């Protein structure tokens, strides 16, 4: 087996705040091979976006990342700032949740794509322009020559996200980190953007790290899934196994919260309570206060990630959970 493209080991992010140090991400590890698509799933505040920004080294100055992030063997967390500038956009590109505000309103979309292309390659202005138009066409923007000279406010949210994707992919990165790329979009547009991302990753071999709270999006795009809760990994599995046999009560809860068209329900299921604040993580398992399967041990001792199946790990003292399903 070859070395993975992106390998994250024991990533921890600590924010220095007025109330002391706050650890938002704690011991996150995963590996990503070329062309693979990994989804990081969790509720708001679970640390998934912070983990992504830590990989890009784009965290606020009061944050400190520890652990290891290796891109083709190179330690990203130790790279110089000038090396980071080559990695950002060139090796690891990123798109964001808000296409409405992620593009600069003062420059045309063409300028912004050309800027990325010329930052990462020795390309003449005319050549960069041609490439940018080709990428606009490739993300299926109609009349790309005309859109090239338009300002972002003239485009719809879906179009802007396509522009963001074109800008990210134009430098042929090996990894694309997509932070909630469809959350702000209409459902029909969401589906188009997801299939576009899948298509581009298959054609170019770019690996994708998809950050989302939406399991529907996960099923659409991901090969593997990492479920995060309160800054830690709760469960990691290939997408099929995760949906068939979730082994962490939090994952089970998330799935219960997905509305289904083929079932009549009075109310949508929810997970009781809310994600605790990073300022006050509970001792032991952080999901214990909300967990329906909680036992005494959960409250005092944090469960380690343990194998529960082929490529499937879960951090739960009660795993495997199949016995509860059988009992129910």
């Amino acid at each position: 087996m070859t070395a993975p493209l992106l390998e994250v080991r024991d990533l921890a992010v600590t924010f220095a705040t007025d109330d002391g140090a706050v650890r938002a991400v704690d011991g996150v590890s995963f590996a990503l091979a070329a062309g693979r698509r990994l989804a990081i799933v969790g509720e708001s505040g679970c640390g998934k976006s912070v983990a992504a920004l830590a990989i890009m080294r784009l965290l606020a100055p009061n944050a400190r990342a520890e652990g290891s992030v290796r891109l083709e063997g190179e330690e990203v967390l130790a790279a110089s700032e000038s090396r980071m500038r080559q990695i950002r956009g060139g090796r690891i590109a990123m798109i964001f949740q808000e296409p409405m505000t992620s593009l600069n309103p003062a420059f045309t979309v063409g300028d912004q794509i050309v800027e990325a292309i010329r930052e990462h390659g020795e390309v003449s202005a005319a050549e960069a322009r041609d490439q940018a138009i080709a990428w606009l066409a490739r993300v299926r923007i109609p009349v790309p020559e005309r859109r090239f000279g338009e300002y972002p406010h003239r485009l719809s949210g879906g179009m802007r996200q396509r522009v963001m994707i074109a800008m990210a992919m134009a430098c042929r990165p090996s990894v694309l980190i997509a932070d909630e790329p469809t959350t702000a979009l209409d459902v029909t547009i969401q589906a188009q953007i997801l299939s576009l991302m899948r298509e581009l990753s298959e054609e170019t071999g770019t690996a994708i790290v998809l950050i989302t709270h939406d399991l529907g999006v996960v099923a659409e795009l991901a090969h593997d899934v990492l479920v995060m809760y309160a800054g830690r990994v709760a469960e990691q599995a290939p997408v099929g196994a995760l949906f068939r046999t979730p082994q962490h009560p939090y994952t089970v809860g998330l799935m219960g919260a997905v509305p289904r068209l083929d079932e009549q329900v009075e109310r949508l299921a929810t997970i009781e309570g809310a994600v605790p604040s990073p300022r006050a993580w509970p001792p032991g398992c952080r999901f214990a206060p909300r967990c329906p399967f909680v036992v005494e041990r959960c409250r005092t001792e944090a469960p380690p990630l343990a194998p529960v199946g082929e490529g499937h790990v879960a951090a739960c003292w009660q795993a495997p959970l199949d016995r509860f399903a059988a009992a129910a």
Partner: protein
Amino acid sequence: MGGFLLRRVGQIIPTLLFVSILIFGLQQLMPGDPALILAGEERGDPQVLAQIRAELNLDRPIHEQYVLWLGNVLQGDLGFSWRIREPVGKVIIEKLPVTVQLGLMAFAIACLIGIPAGIVSAVRKDRPADWIANGIALAGISTPNFWLGIMMILLFSVKLGWLPPSGYVPLAEDWRQSLATTIMPAFVLGTGIAAVLMRHTRSAMVQAMAQDYVRTARAKGLAERVIVAKHALRNALVPVVTLGALELGTLLSGAVLTEQVFTIPGFGKLIVDAVFNRDYPVVQGVVLVVAVIYVGLNLAADVLYVLINPRLRHA
């Protein structure tokens, strides 16, 4: 862009008309009878007074006086100074270059200090460079211009003897001497405005640097220098341009105290003299020219906005 310009110019006409009524109307409310002043020694003779009033149309109803005055103004005739005995237009054209030179120099100094200081302060927010810049800005805002002017004269003219303490040499006559006579007043006027510009640039830049598009620019791998100077600054400039236009307008309407301290024969001195002498045509003319400059600068600011912020182009 053409349509936009046409619309904006169209909006200016009623504004200027209103301003002209205001100028003319306020004038009538000022105490004192100009005929009495003009009559001088003969102020006791009712016949002389009546004659002066008839000559100056002061015996006509106010609205007629206004129409007569406006008609002349539209033909480029701002009237005749009662006191200096010269056409108002000529008086203004003599003083205008002085004020424009001083104003532009002060404005250039203000921009050169204020905008970069604001940017540095925003980028180094809550760090020593920010504190220092803010401290200097506070000092700049709170220092009275006339005091700073006197201190500068004491230092650079009296103690060091580098610069002439007062007076004015026109640019066309001797540009070196001209700059030497105007650099101190321009600096005095400019630093006060620099402080205001710095504060506004700083807050606009702090806001811009927190925007999503700045994060996108970082994720693209751009250098911080490019992100600050291109992506953030372009967006932060809009409020700064508005403020700049207003400050430049104020500068071009004459700086009474600073002109007084440095004995510079500009607009400020002209208008003060005219008001004290009830020289209505001069007051009207100067205020009207200042109003036109203000309105013109606002138009320029609007055009600049649109160039900076493309979202306004279709509004």
